[in-house]
């Protein structure tokens, strides 16, 4: 059995910052990551990030991951277990982990769950044909393994991920014939949308996939306009000759461990699905279990890092570390979060959090 003060599960931006913040206050930390590398989603992001200096704005995602991973590597208080998956949570608070067939448990005084999210899928006729991928899978193929998924791609979903992966496909020399979006408006930051549009990629809002066609693998996709009741408009069908259809229709938080641990959960659409109820310090209804990043509501790496900081600081404080400067540090981080979320694009997350805190009041 391993023993630690703070156990962090998942080494994306939220988990890396949580580990650094808890260790920075003096706590011993174990950081568990199922991939053989640290960084989570960041390792695939070759584009420059938004945000402000505090969140490494204008730096490419992959480099932000490297900076954080290096800091974690160099920190003597943090023990890193890569290639290691957290499998379960026991009543006595131990967490079960598995690495290359070896099973072990970790005794911890505080747990920070930063497992991120998984991609949603879309159901339409023949959606199981080879050649139909999730956008995240395509990004991993290209940017982690250096493999191109095909020659001509149609993207479904004009959120940030769909638009950015389209741009990265263009950069890899692959044709993107269209981005198809059911909503009447583009969800991605419009500067991202403009940069793929000026490379000649049409963004078809109020459009949906009717069906995929092909015998052995994907050969064509039929799309059509939809009206304000989400019904296809007859006569607007178009056939796109593509060998790849990339689906990017949102993410769902990866919350199994939180359910297992008995955290009070609520389904909040604006946050991406089921999330753990939590307070402003990222502590769930189970004391000394924290969440941060996409698992606590689908948002951005910038917010994930700051949430990780809040969770790490508070976990350490609960164990008696860093009491002197806790208030000052946590207040600064919370102000940063408020700033990131204040604008019009933060509307959805603000609405989601409002519901979450309300649910919290009802549940208590």
């Amino acid at each position: 059995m391993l023993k630690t003060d703070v156990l962090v599960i998942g080494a994306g931006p939220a988990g890396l910052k949580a580990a650094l913040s808890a260790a920075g206050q003096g706590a011993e930390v174990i950081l568990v990551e199922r991939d053989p590398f640290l960084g989570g989603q960041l390792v695939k992001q070759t584009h420059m990030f938004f945000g402000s200096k505090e969140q490494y704005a204008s730096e490419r995602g992959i480099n932000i991951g490297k900076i954080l991973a290096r800091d974690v590597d160099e920190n003597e208080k943090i023990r890193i277990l890569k290639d290691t998956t957290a499998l379960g949570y026991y009543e006595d608070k131990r967490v079960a982990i598995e690495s290359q067939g070896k099973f072990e448990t970790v005794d911890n005084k505080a747990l920070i769950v930063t497992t991120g999210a998984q991609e949603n899928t879309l159901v339409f006729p023949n959606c199981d044909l080879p050649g139909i991928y999730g956008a995240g899978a395509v990004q991993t193929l290209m940017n982690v393994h250096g493999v191109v998924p095909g020659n001509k791609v149609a993207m479904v979903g004009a959120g940030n991920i769909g638009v950015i992966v389209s741009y990265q496909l263009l950069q890899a020399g692959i044709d993107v014939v269209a981005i198809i979006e059911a909503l009447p408006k583009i969800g991605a930051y419009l500067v991202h949308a403009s940069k793929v549009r000026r490379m000649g990629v049409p963004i078809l809002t109020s459009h949906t996939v009717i069906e995929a066609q092909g015998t052995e693998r994907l050969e064509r996709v039929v799309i059509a306009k939809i009206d304000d009741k989400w019904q296809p408009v007859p006569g607007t069908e178009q056939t796109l000759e593509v060998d790849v259809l990339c689906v990017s229709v949102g993410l769902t938080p990866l919350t199994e461990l939180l359910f297992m641990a008995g955290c009070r959960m609520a389904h909040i659409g604006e946050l991406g699905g089921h999330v753990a109820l939590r307070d402003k310090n990222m502590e769930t209804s189970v004391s000394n279990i924290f969440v941060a990043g996409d698992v606590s509501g689908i948002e951005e790496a910038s917010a994930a890092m700051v949430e990780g900081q809040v969770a790490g600081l508070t976990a350490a404080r609960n164990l008696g570390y860093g009491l002197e400067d806790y208030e000052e540090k946590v207040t600064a981080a919370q102000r940063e979060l408020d700033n990131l979320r204040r604008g019009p694009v933060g509307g959805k997350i603000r609405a989601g959090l409002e519901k979450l805190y309300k649910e919290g009041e009802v549940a208590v």
Partner: protein
Amino acid sequence: MLERTGIPTPKQIEAIKPSGERLAKGPVAIVECFQEIPCDPCYTACKRGGFLPFEDINDLPKTDDEKCNGCGICVGFCPGLAVFIVDETYSETEALVTIPWEFSRLPAEGSQVWGLDREGKEAARVTVKTVRKSPKKNGAHMLTLIVPKEKAYDIRSISHKE
């Protein structure tokens, strides 16, 4: 409309255009960022006060065209690739347009390529005057294009297929 297509409207472009007087003086930054998002590297990159201070990180960037000398530093810092430099004083009939460029294939200096408009349509053949690395580590490259003067507000990319 921008929210439906990704293409800024002529009205939006007109609204951010520097004065004719300023354009006659030389290169200046054109910032095509029309949505309030939590982002401010353009402002922090400029050391000349070319951008007005952000009160809130979600503010739209606003330029001070008199302080901007068109140096182009901010071009490589903007993650939205939304900053361009236009120099209308290049010649009688031609202007210089500097664009950010993130494709691994770099055009050769002196070569002729298609200049694309905001829809990705071929607007005119243009000459690549210079290819520069951004002063920012890992930033976007900056391509300076010689374009017909009347296209200085249309051409915002080049074809990546040539």
